[in-house]
């Protein structure tokens, strides 16, 4: 295990475990963390996992960890690793089981005050329309060739069928579709797990949250993103559901078997990997891309269902615009200093700065929006990507508050009913499927989001644009 003595302070909020710490490390391990949060990182194996990441063949510069770092599988949550496009490996543990778990922000034209009276109706209307929770299927059931088309086309599949507008795709990371997706590389089991889950939230820390923009830090960026103080907005957090989980399971199993053929030896089975350019590496990447497309389609469908409820309750002239949609469990081919790399982001968000051609024209001068949701009932943030993040973190930043307490302990510490009452006392409307699930997601079980975002802002990997506070939440 590691201790504070193993870390070297590079500068404020940046610590490093040198390559010399362990013989098999190929690069140093770098963590963006404050002195205040540093002690918490020693409570679990997350730093040890980060050191293991530093042993990956072809890894470039550093194994990186964001301030919301906590223990995961293979990679820690909040882990980022860029590998050489030709010589490096791809590791499903660097993406996670919930492929393209991500966040989408919708902006209304209303202030929170204007919709105050309608929040309750809206919460319960959406609660009834968008399935959340366990084993509950969505309204749309797609099978066969159509399902393969969805895996190939992502959010575009739904927009073509009038479940959204073309503009929604422009304001989505990768326009809601990775072109390399190959549905034939997704198992039938994965497809069966996913075919009734389009338009479903799931459970755990997934949610739909109604929020108000409490404070604007960067007026210019906020204006470009279409945000204003006291605005009513909606945040969606969900991923690829059972389909993505099964794709990850299938390919981890395959890679454990074939990894020895590539003379790769790693300290953790969940870190299993193969050369990115190998057949298995390319197969996984194309299957992962199909999983990512499913997640974008899922968030697109949820957007459609929210819009329907919204227009029903607030009037058909009113519309919710997609501000942006970010993935936080994914691997992407990107270019830095003229070099092509594969960036693994496991519980970490891309944060492209100004000038990146991948961004929609409207965001080219500001950099992309980044969303960092806090734990349930606490603040969330909108930030913008920076040019500096390319050098510091392969254009990556954190994805949330990060757990600091086990679910089991959270359930022993808090009662779901009490938490619900406390949130309702703060005038939040709560629609939740499971009281035990609510207790697991208690704010006290997570790190301080304000501290996390302060670190991100001070390091310079993203800059604060707005702080959001919750008005209502829907959870499974």
């Amino acid at each position: 295990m590691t201790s504070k003595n193993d870390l070297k302070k590079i500068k404020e909020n940046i610590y490093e475990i040198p390559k010399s710490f362990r013989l098999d490390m190929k690069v140093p391990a770098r963590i963006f963390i404050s002195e205040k949060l540093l002690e918490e990182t020693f409570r679990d194996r997350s730093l040890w996992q980060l050191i293991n990441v530093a042993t990956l063949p072809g890894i470039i510069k550093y194994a990186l960890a964001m301030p919301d770092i906590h223990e995961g599988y293979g990679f820690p949550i909040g882990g980022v690793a860029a590998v050489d496009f030709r010589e490096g490996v791809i590791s499903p543990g660097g993406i996670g089981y919930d492929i393209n778990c991500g966040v989408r922000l919708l902006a209304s034209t209303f202030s929170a005050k204007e919709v105050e009276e309608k929040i309750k109706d809206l919460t319960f209307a959406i609660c009834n329309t968008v399935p959340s929770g366990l084993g509950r299927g969505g309204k749309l059931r797609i099978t066969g060739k159509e399902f393969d088309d969805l895996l190939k086309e992502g959010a575009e599949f739904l927009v073509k069928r009038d479940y959204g507008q073309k503009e929604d795709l422009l304001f989505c990371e990768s326009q809601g579709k990775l072109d390399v997706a190959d549905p034939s590389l997704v198992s039938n089991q994965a497809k069966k797990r996913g075919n009734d889950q389009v338009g479903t939230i799931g459970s755990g820390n997934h949610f739909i949250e109604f929020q108000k923009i409490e404070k604007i830090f960067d007026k210019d960026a906020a204006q470009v993103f279409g945000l204003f103080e006291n605005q009513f907005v909606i945040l969606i957090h969900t991923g690829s559901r059972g389909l993505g989980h099964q794709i990850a399971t299938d390919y981890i199993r395959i890679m454990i078997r074939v990894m020895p053929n590539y003379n790769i030896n790693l300290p953790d089975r969940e870190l299993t990997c193969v050369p990115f350019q190998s057949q298995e590496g390319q197969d996984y990447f194309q299957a992962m891309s199909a999983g990512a497309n499913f997640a974008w389609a899922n968030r697109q469908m949820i957007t459609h269902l929210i819009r329907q409820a919204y227009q029903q309750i607030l009037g058909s002239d009113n519309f919710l615009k997609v501000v942006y949609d970010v993935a936080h469990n994914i691997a992407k081919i990107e270019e830095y200093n003229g070099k092509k790399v594969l960036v693994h982001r496991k519980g970490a968000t891309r944060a492209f700065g100004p000038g990146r051609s991948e961004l929609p024209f409207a965001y080219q001068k500001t950099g992309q929006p980044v969303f960092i949701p806090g734990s349930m009932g606490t603040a969330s943030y909108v930030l913008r990507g920076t040019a500096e993040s390319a050098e510091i973190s392969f254009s990556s930043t954190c994805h949330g508050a990060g757990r600091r307490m086990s679910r089991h302990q959270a359930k022993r510490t808090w009662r779901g009913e009490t938490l619900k009452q406390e949130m309702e006392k703060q005038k939040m409307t709560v629609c939740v499927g499971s009281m035990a699930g609510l207790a697991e997601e208690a704010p006290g079980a997570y790190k301080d989001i304000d501290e996390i975002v302060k670190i991100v802002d001070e390091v310079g990997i993203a800059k604060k644009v707005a702080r959001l506070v919750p008005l209502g939440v829907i959870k499974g």
Partner: protein
Amino acid sequence: MEKFKILPHIADLRIKSWGKDQKELFLNSLLGMSLVLKPNILKIKPQKEIKKKIDIFSPDSTALLIDFLSEVLAQNQIEKVVFYKAKFSKLTDKGLEGEISGIKVDSFDEDIKAVTYYKAEIKKNHLLTIVTTYDI
């Protein structure tokens, strides 16, 4: 003898299970996972028991157990059944054939995304034990 026990984990779920032999370890691990998915599964009187054949090959006995639980989990989610029992016609270090059986359910009490290989290793003292970690 205790069959299984839930252990703390920062974000997910860990279950320690025991068995006097490989078969018992596999069955107790299956039971542990099933009772997380539906704690009252043993109390439900089904009208009909659902059965499914199963056939797995893995590089070693630990991977076999994880792959077995993964296969059952996938079938649970696809069929909306909690398969909590199994009969093996063949069970070796690297392979198994048999049949799982269970009960149809309306929903699950926990959303298990995956069974991970994380720190999984079958150990032998007086009994066989394993700690399996589930992504939830």
